[in-house]
């Protein structure tokens, strides 16, 4: 039982991170049918921006830990969104009229550019968020000590995802996004500025990715300029498992992936963790080729 509870919380925390990143893949795919391969690197960027804001500027020492984290989260999300916007303007918008393949190549280019830029700006040596950045608490759940931070990561990601879901389904802007996802031409005829919708999607996704990067930095400490590769791949997998283009699907896919990893490591073998994960991916795709929650034409996203 001890193992079960611990691994459950481990899996949910990791899964929450995967889900947050997966949302970026899935939203962009939903609207543009483009796999944004640079998304994992925007996640890395978020982790590094967080490091600069929280650690290098020593924000916590100046305005207290609570406000520093709140401000840090907002700044990281804002700057990641800005980076995402610049990326869309520079690398994707000029290619809107050319084939989808060119956009994919452009995405790979942005990914390589971002990785190397991060390496050159912050250095090739990994950085480490200090362990005492946040006070560490352990709270008992069913008699088991669970680090509070792990729950905070999980709850934050759930909160953000629910917020996003409500935004997409309840607000007028959300309706515009959904309309653009279903049929861009018709959306234009209805007076929706599709270009702005796309720009918005490319800001929301990176903001969430940047937040995930910050949370990984704060909770696990070490950040490296290539960490986006592995997380990007896992999150992409999560988006596929959930049915790419579908927002609740990305959330479910992310959490499922985190749990499969944790329990695979716990009850089968640590070394086979990734093999098990991708075996599950294959299994799901064999049974449901479009993922768990395939995008339905009528209510895509």
């Amino acid at each position, binding site marked *: 039982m*001890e*193992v079960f509870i*611990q*691994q459950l919380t*481990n*899996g949910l*925390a*990791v899964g929450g991170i995967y889900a947050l990143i997966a949302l970026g893949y899935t939203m962009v795919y939903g609207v543009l049918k483009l796999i944004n391969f640079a998304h994992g690197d925007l996640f890395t960027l978020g982790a590094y921006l967080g490091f600069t804001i929280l650690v290098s500027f020593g924000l916590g020492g100046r305005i207290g830990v609570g406000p520093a984290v709140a401000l840090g989260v907002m700044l990281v999300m804002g700057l990641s969104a800005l980076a995402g916007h610049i990326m869309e303007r520079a690398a994707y918008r000029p290619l809107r009229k050319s084939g989808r393949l060119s956009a994919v190549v452009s995405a790979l280019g942005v990914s390589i550019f971002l990785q190397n830029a991060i*390496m050159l700006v912050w250095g*090739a*040596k*990994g950085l*480490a968020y*200090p*362990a*005492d950045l946040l006070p*560490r608490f*352990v709270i008992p759940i069913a008699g088991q*000590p669970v*680090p509070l*931070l*792990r729950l905070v990561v999980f709850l934050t990601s759930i909160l953000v995802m629910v917020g996003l879901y409500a935004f997409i389904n309840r607000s007028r802007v959300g309706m515009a996004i959904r309309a653009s996802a279903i049929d861009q031409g018709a959306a234009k005829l209805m007076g929706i500025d599709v270009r702005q919708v796309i720009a918005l999607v490319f800001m929301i996704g990176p903001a969430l990715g940047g937040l995930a990067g910050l949370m*990984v930095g704060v909770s*696990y*400490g*070490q950040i*490296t300029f*290539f*960490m986006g590769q*592995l*997380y990007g791949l896992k999150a992409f997998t999560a988006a596929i498992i959930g049915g790419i283009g579908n927002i609740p699907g990305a959330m479910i896919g992310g959490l499922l992936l985190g749990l499969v*990893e*944790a329990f695979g*490591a*716990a009850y089968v*073998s*640590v*070394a086979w*963790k*990734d093999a098990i994960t991708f075996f599950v991916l294959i299994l799901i795709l064999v049974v449901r080729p479009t993922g768990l929650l395939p995008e339905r034409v009528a209510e895509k996203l």
Partner: protein
Amino acid sequence: MRITAVLGMILGLGLAVPQCFAADRAPVRIGVMAPVTGEWASEGQDMVNVVRLLAEELNKNGGAGGRLIEIEVGDDGGDPKTAALAAQRLVSAGVAAVIGTYGSAVTEASQDIYADDDVLQIGTGSTSIRLTEKGLPLFFRTCPRDDDQGRVMARHIKALGFKKAALVHDNSSYARGLAEEVRALFDDQSVAVVFYDAITPGDRDYSTTLTKIKTLNPDLIIFTGYYPEAAMLLRQKKEMAWEVPMIGGDATNNLALVDIAGRESAKGYYFISPPGPSDLTGEMSEAFMAEYQARFKTLPSSVWAVMAGDAFKVLALAIENVDQPTGANLARYLHNDLKDFVGFTGPIAFNEKGDREGDVYRLYQVDAEGRFVLIP
């Protein structure tokens, strides 16, 4: 050049000053294959810095036996595939010898390429046993081997009184080799190995693994992989409020370990390693470390970069003492004639396999201030 030679001959006639014609000898190109980028970039950049600094100094003083040394850097990215490309690039650049590299798997990917082209190679951080068991006549290393390390580690674990260990590696050829070595030494049940498995390097979350190990209740965790993962294990172990001691191998001898883990979590961590840069004794080492400090504002973060310096030193000596600096000639010198040479990390001589002779491993522990303290 030719005019200088003629002048030299005329002027030096009867005087036979060796430097005069020595200045005419063609420069020798030496490759440094190092992970300048990638996960081990910190190691690789230090390696290049050390070798560049030494080469500059040597060239200022007239080179090795009158031959200037040109340094050519090949970035292996800490990755076997990239290493094969880097090796081919260095070979086509016409290097006579190559210093490097850090990871054993990476070195292994490049060995045959150098061997095929008569290029001498001196590994600097590659401790996997296999590398020198292949009978390659042009391969040497200034670092010790994993079986030395495994023996010393097992000896210390027994001496410290541990009885029940969890053994964790990361499936790299270095970490796996060391783990197998240590496990074999515990076959006599002097220490029970209750867990034996690998983690994935590059992951951020190891709490699943730690949680699993905790249920087996070992009194020691042995991790044979590299410092980024060791640091993450220490940090996450602390977060679980689990106080079990941990011991690691020489790949965790890097000051970044404490940065990543935090002092609190790193405190009490044991590792087996050759003496670190700040523990090197002897006039030459101290002088060089001071110069390095002055130039780069910090010491090399691990001893492996210093091993690259040792490799450069023995190479320079070999180049000075052979007629033609071909791989075979240099190797003959290193095998047969290199005796009683004292490098930065102690006496250096090579046995017939190309391994360094003598015992260099020590036991270290991290103290409350995050310093690496040599335990006698």
